[in-house]
């Protein structure tokens, strides 16, 4: 029982980065831009978050710093893929390595590596904490409680608002959207920057709230897993949230099992998130339920003068 209680208690903390990063990616991919750069933007968010936190000791401001830094770096990517029409795979990969190099360099030069920071205290939600087994679910930091609201906001925006409808139109059929008077390039540009801010928040959360430390390359592939998660979720935010809970659950289950004395070869355990991502993609491909929900123009640049 203790095992389950601990596992449930740690699960949200592990799920938040996956959830926020996937949500950010959904925004830009719904506008038709394939965003492979998540791993890099998360690193930028993580480093900027630690930097701000070391300066002001205010986690809320540090997380805003994470968002701003990732959004700023994503402008480079947006200029490349939206205006200069660079191949989105090449641009995304270049962005990851740009960010890995940049954060590795700055982390060392500025001396932010291995500097512990104070994170956020957990807030108990009144008597709910007293519940057996699930009680620790209601003893989380403020960001965890905020995540459902962020999701609800994005779901409302994408699904119910005129601006969200336009964004999806741009991702489905930019030619038609253009004919309807929607500024395709501007919409895509803003979708990238807004989505990247959420990805940066995911990175900042890992560094400032979870590990309370910056180490080069600390996101360890979580950005790539988020890219896979978006495919799993078929570009639906709620399914992405469910997927994030699944991945967070697996990530936290393993140390719990180890702590409970169940011996497992360490490095095979470390493989599991990646193998699960693969497994989930296979499952999605085999299931193929419902219609193909891939945004129609995902990965395709738009140029009005180009007839197709």
């Amino acid at each position, binding site marked *: 029982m203790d095992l389950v209680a601990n596992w449930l208690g740690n699960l949200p903390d592990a799920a938040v980065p996956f959830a926020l990063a996937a949500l950010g990616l959904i925004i830009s991919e719904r506008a038709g831009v394939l965003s492979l750069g998540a791993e890099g933007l998360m690193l930028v968010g993580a480093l900027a978050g630690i930097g701000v936190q070391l300066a002001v000791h205010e986690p809320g401001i540090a997380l805003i710093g994470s968002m701003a830094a990732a959004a700023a770096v994503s402008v480079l990517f947006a200029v490349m893929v939206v205006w200069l029409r*660079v191949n989105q795979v090449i641009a995304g990969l270049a962005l990851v*390595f*740009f960010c890995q190099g940049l954060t590795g360099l700055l982390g060392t030069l500025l001396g932010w590596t291995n500097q512990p920071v104070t994170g956020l205290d957990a807030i108990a939600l009144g008597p709910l904490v007293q519940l057996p087994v699930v009680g620790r679910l209601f003893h989380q930091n403020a960001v965890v409680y905020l995540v459902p609201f962020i999701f609800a906001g994005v779901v409302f925006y994408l699904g119910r608002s005129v601006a969200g409808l336009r964004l999806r139109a741009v991702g489905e059929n930019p030619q038609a959207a253009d004919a309807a008077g929607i500024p395709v390039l501007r919409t895509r540009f803003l979708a990238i920057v807004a989505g990247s801010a959420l990805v940066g928040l995911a990175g900042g959360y890992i560094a400032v709230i979870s590990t309370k430390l910056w180490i080069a390359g600390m996101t360890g592939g979580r950005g790539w897993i988020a890219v896979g998660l978006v495919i799993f979720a078929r570009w639906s935010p709620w399914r992405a949230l469910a997927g994030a809970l699944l991945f967070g659950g697996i990530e936290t289950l393993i140390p719990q099992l180890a702590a409970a004395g169940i011996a497992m070869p360490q490095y095979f355990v470390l493989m599991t998130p990646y193998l699960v991502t693969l497994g989930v993609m296979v499952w999605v491909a085999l299931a193929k339920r419902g219609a193909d929900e891939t945004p129609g123009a995902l990965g395709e640049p738009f140029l009005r003068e180009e007839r197709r």
Partner: protein
Amino acid sequence: MTPTDHSPAPRRFVPLLERRYTLELRQQLGWPQQVAIIAAAIAVGLFISGAILVAAGVSPSDLLDEFIVQTFTDPQNLRAVLFQAAPMVMVGLAAAMAFRARFWNLGLEGQMIFGAIGATFVSLHQIGPPESRLWLMAGASLLGGLAWVVLPLALKMRLGIAEIISSLMLNYVAANFLLHLVYGAWKDPKDSFPYSPKFQPFERLPEVFDGFSSAIVLAAVVALAAWWFVDRSRAGLYLRFIHANQRVADAVGVPVRRLVVASVLISGALAGLGGFMVAAGQEGRLTQAFYSGYGFSGILIAFLARNNPLAASVVAVVVATLFVAGRSLQVFYQIPFSMVQLIQAILVVCVASSDFFIRHRLRAVGSQP
């Protein structure tokens, strides 16, 4: 950006910002202009990188002298560059082979790891007589790399799963498997460091003419073979067809599936051979992080070389120079090795962006609404 107004009416000057611009697709641009644009992009990239290094505390004179003049004039440094270039050529060719078949093989590092594991397996179990051991190790590395690309390839061909994610995920799996070996069963019992026992002298890539590793000769041979394959063979011609338009190629009877499978398997095998070159050439054993940085370098090399094997070999030497210079920066200036990644990324960004000016032009259409 001069307005090209074809009407006979007298032109009146319109301030630059008040003109309306439209984008036009260019007809084919002549190759001298293309080369000039790419060269300018690389120059811009190098300038930005140099500026970052100077800002990080490297003195500008050292930058020029130590890392450019010294590298190409000092025979010792030149040897180091060529030594480093051999596995670079392999990952560059590996990426180019896969990209020619429109397969985003981002699993080069995992395939390198399994190539090196294959070679080390042959060494540890002393398979075959000493005189043929090195060949067996090379063969095992080809098989190891090939085996590690089979899964993402099969997933793509059978289930349509994006190879971008699957091949990348497998890098992390391979890296952890490598750690499992070098911290576990294959650990050198002599000390507590995470690496395998040293290979025997005859299991190392020998030196040929005056201290140059035979790895570079092997790389040159493979590069020529790859060039023949993509440029001269029928299969290479078909691959170009597939790259241009897979559906049409299929419709006119090109064996698309077989060729895609073949070139992706070759890609994995070449990356595996690159792993063998690092293990049996540079390190002389299986080490825990020998692969890091090669995956992206391979993609960068193939991208900059436009998937041309001979051009890839040249670019690989340049990237190898960057690696060698990066290591001396690390030693002498404590600049982290991630600087090398950063410079590579900046170069890719510049060259990729410059492509825009090759394919399009801005045209001003006057100020009238």
